């Protein structure tokens, strides 16, 4: 039976290799334009004539894409998805996706658009086409109401709590050598340290600290946007120029009615608060 086990292992290895090759198909490049014609994505006309668009969203990432207690999809991304379907005059099918499989859903044409808090990175841009951004994320600094830190320079000589491996750690190490960093492995450890007064402030993604400050009284986000800004944008299957162009035009035209500010009020305000400068998170017309 040993021989058979070896054969089985070899065959499974071959299947794995094949599937890996299929996954990285876009990177190898050759013959890629051919696959688009056999239906790896749908053009705007095809979506319209079939009367339905499928958009991949998160189903458990409040407040971007989640399912409420009534079983309805809600959130910042979902609000935009509904508008896209409305403006295309088609029915909307929301497909729940996981962070790890967002790229795959697009590459196989199982969804037309991904609207799942998708941060634009160079690596991802090789595999999918990003439209103009509709949101952005940077660093934020949260501190106690009694001693609010309202600019990064105020931190010099003080102790800042960070979580290991986050962009906040790298950013302050490189740009503010005079800030004493107190590093933790877990978010909840860092938050307890802040509550116990072991540090003067805590820094991580602004969406994270804003939401935390909202549900923890006595703390304020004094610095709402700091460091390099990451763009969050819709993505379409690589090569779907037509849908990409349509989306970009849509995002530009929605700027006239300040659509994403309205989206913020409807979906994010309850989590991040009304006092936040919305322009630190919301992007109108794709202008970062």
């Amino acid at each position: 039976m040993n021989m058979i086990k070896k054969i089985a292992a070899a065959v499974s290895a071959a299947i794995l290799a094949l599937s890996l090759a299929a996954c990285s198909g876009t990177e190898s490049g050759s013959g890629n334009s051919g696959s688009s014609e056999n239906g790896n994505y749908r053009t705007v006309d095809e979506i319209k004539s079939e009367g339905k668009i499928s958009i991949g969203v998160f189903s458990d990432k409040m407040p971007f894409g989640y399912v409420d207690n009534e079983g309805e999809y809600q959130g910042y991304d979902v609000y935009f998805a509904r508008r896209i379907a409305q403006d295309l005059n088609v029915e909307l099918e929301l497909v729940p996706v996981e962070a790890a499989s967002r790229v795959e859903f697009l590459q196989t044409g199982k969804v037309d658009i991904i609207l799942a808090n998708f941060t634009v990175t160079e690596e991802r841009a090789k595999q999918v086409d990003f439209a103009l951004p509709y949101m952005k994320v940077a660093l934020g600094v949260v501190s106690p109401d009694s001693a609010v830190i309202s600019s990064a320079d105020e931190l010099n000589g003080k102790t800042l709590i960070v979580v290991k491996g986050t962009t906040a750690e790298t950013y302050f190490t490189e740009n503010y050598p005079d800030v004493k960093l107190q590093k933790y492995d877990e978010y909840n450890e860092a938050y307890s340290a802040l509550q116990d007064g072991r540090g003067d402030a805590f820094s991580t993604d602004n969406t994270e600290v804003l939401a935390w400050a909202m549900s923890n009284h006595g703390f304020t986000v004094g610095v709402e946007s700091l460091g390099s800004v990451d763009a969050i944008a819709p993505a379409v299957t690589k090569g779907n120029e037509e849908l990409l162009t349509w989306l970009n035009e849509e995002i530009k035209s929605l700027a006239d009615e300040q659509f994403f500010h309205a989206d913020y009020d409807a979906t994010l305000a309850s989590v991040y608060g009304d006092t936040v400068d919305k322009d630190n998170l919301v992007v109108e017309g794709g202008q970062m």
Partner: protein
Amino acid sequence: MRGIEVLFLGNNMLRLLEGLWVTVRLALISIGLSLILGSALGAAMTLKNKVVKVITRVYLEIIRIMPQLVFLFIVFFGVTKLTGANLSGEVSAVIVFTLWGTAEVGDLVRSAFGAIPKHQFESGISLGLSKPQLYLFIIFPQALRGLIPNIINLSMRMIMTTALVSLIGVTEVLKVGKQIIDANRFDYPNAAIWVYAAIFLLYFLICFPLSLVSRGLAKRRADK
């Protein structure tokens, strides 16, 4: 007890039950198909033919080596990439679980027939029974008795493994639970423990009766 209210908010209880139905439905269809195909496979495995033996053995080993999650991704995404055929998440899941179940059932059937002593066949024939009579009255009842507990065991493993299908976009009971926890994470930060407790209870309600049946059958078999 703070957080338990979450289970009764809106449609949450109903959604959990719907999620459970997705789980049970996937497992039932897969087990049903596996029983039919697996019996055929098991019969093939008992043949003395060398080629058939090697092929079935290789199939069984591949299924056992490959993690189910990898299989789900290969069928759900890989098939679409290679052929353009767009399988839904549920169909992909049924295919994967049936391939897995068929291999396991096949092996169980093979060993169940293998475990029947040779003298049972010989005594049957010497009593003057025909081949169909021999199998119907002597061999099948004995093989089946050993088989049922193992099949139930496999069904329970399958029910629990269906939690993986949320990764290919199928919302089953565990995923519904995560959605409920997340949607209420600001208002009810302690809801997670209650939601998971409810899911545990639901799995238990499905699996425990199966486990009892299986134990009862095993006992009856031991008594004989």
